[in-house]
């Protein structure tokens, strides 16, 4: 009872502020509503006892990435609309993408209902006091079963970081 109240509370906040984020004209307002969406999603993570996901969502997305977003929005002139954004094709592309995502979600939900236990919905969740600490579980699966993809992702991030340093490097020292 209380669980579903909390879930629908966070879920409705997430959906409503996602809609507001798309419809606002002011970019900072959009950013604020995106932050609200991310926070509400983090709240759902916390309710599902995925505490590590909750804190990384907040530290990375809300604390890091969104602050940088706002930083950039504040520095860029947004009152001058870019010409390439006003393309006629954009509406149709957006419609197509939205339909594709909708169909994909519907198919996944249907499949998950047909094969219980194999899809997204877990039929018998473990009771709250018998869950393993999920920080440790996450570390085990990242550094155990998924070590190679994890390392590849870190190399990718490293490449991006080195690239940023090279691009930002001060070249005044060169003759």
């Amino acid at each position, binding site marked *: *009872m*209380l669980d579903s109240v909390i879930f629908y509370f966070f879920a409705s906040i997430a959906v409503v502020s996602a809609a507001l984020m798309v419809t606002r004209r*002011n970019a*900072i*307002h959009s950013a*604020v509503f995106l*932050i609200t969406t991310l926070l509400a999603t983090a709240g759902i993570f916390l309710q599902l006892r995925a*505490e*590590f996901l*909750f*804190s*990384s969502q*907040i*530290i990375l997305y*809300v*604390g*890091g990435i*969104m*602050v*940088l977003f*706002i*930083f950039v929005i*504040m*520095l860029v002139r947004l009152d001058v609309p870019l010409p390439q954004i006003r393309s006629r094709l954009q509406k149709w592309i957006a419609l197509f993408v939205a339909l594709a995502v909708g169909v994909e979600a519907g198919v996944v939900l249907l499949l998950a209902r047909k094969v219980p236990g194999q899809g997204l919905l877990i039929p018998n969740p473990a009771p709250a006091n018998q869950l393993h*600490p*999920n*920080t440790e579980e996450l570390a085990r699966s990242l550094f155990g079963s998924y070590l190679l993809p994890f390392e590849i992702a870190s190399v990718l991030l490293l490449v991006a970081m080195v690239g940023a340093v090279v691009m930002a490097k*001060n070249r*005044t*020292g060169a003759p």
Partner: protein
Amino acid sequence: MSPTLHSIVAFVQAWWVELLCALLIVLVVPLIAGYIVLVERKVMADMQARLGPMRVGPHGLLQPIADALKLLIKEDLIPDNADQFIFWLAPVLSMTAALTSMGAVAFGPWFQVARDINIGLLFVVGVSALGPLGIVLGGWASNNHYSIIGALRSTAQLISYETTAGFALVSGFLLAGTLKVRTIVENQRNDHAWYIFLAPVGFFIYLIASIAETNRAPFDLPEAESELVAGYMTEYSGFRWSLYFLAEYANMIVVASVGTTLFLGGWLRPFPNVHWLGWLDAAPALLFAAVGAYCVFRAGKQPARVQSLFMWALAFACFVVAAIFALASPFSHLPLEKMHDGLYGAFWFLLKDSAYIYIFMWLRFTLPRFRFDQLMRLGWHILVPLALINVVDVSIALALSSEFGVNRWLAMVVTTAATLGAAMLLVRWNDKYSAAASAALLTDSSVAENSHAG
């Protein structure tokens, strides 16, 4: 009874301790923040050989309450060109983040709101990462150049120093082997050492980073009075301004609590395992009795009758607290185990917190403000690499002592020496580099000027 009401009643019955703790935090933290301001003014006055606030109440003890009243009845101004919605939202966001992050802090063995949350300190660090957002949005919404410069400075500073603080905390987490607040503290009892002694460099890096994160001098560039009026809160007045102010002091309590929990043994008495130091349990009662006696001594010397009455009341309160501590102490042999744990835990925890905050004040009135490039250089060229090296060295020490059976203290001393050596090298390289860089900058600009003139 309807099912909704029933489930609410069941909820309250199951969680009343947590709800009470949350209520206590929300009610008491603003008051404590006000008194931290008073203590700060008193410490500043002491360091500058003055008396500080003395008029409102004996020794200025009612000053915070007078200030709060003044702020409440001040006019609440919103600039015409400000973004109304975000101007309203920003201070609320800062304050909410600061108070929420206090939820996972354990002020004693049972005084904690989110008790079995298994990310513990990470929750505190994560939620307090929302605070900068309030500062940035507030600075932007004010539509004022000083505000926006303050907001930009604060963003850059907080992102840089959060990285540092995170790595410094990792060295402590490695020693504790867990993120759970209670287990961290219990492990320090079982390891027979506070982690400040096992990872001293980590603690000092965290101390510096936490001062920078709370925007306090010498890192108070976002609100540098002499450059930016008041930085991001230039346009704020009255109660909104005081929300920012409260958030800053609540954040001080939060970072001090994180440092205390991870490095200073949390709510544990100093030397909890040493049996012959058991007399330390008498310290709280004796301390409060001594303060009460001092109040009695000062009561006769107050200039006004009201003030000496107030001093008598204060002395009485101190004696009552001392009596409660004495009753709950192990010497009284009363069956008050739980009360003893809670009271004494809170006492030692708050004592360590106060010491930590005192260091903040001490540094504020001793060091001049950094320049912005110095701040960035210290953060990225020295502290971040040093924190990384420290994490590696602490892991090496742990591996040496657990896998190869080297004495724990020997491993710790060797790796700390290695970290300090690396720190010296870093500083030396940085000096050389920055000297070269500024020389290059100088010649460059002079060349540019000459060519312009030519």
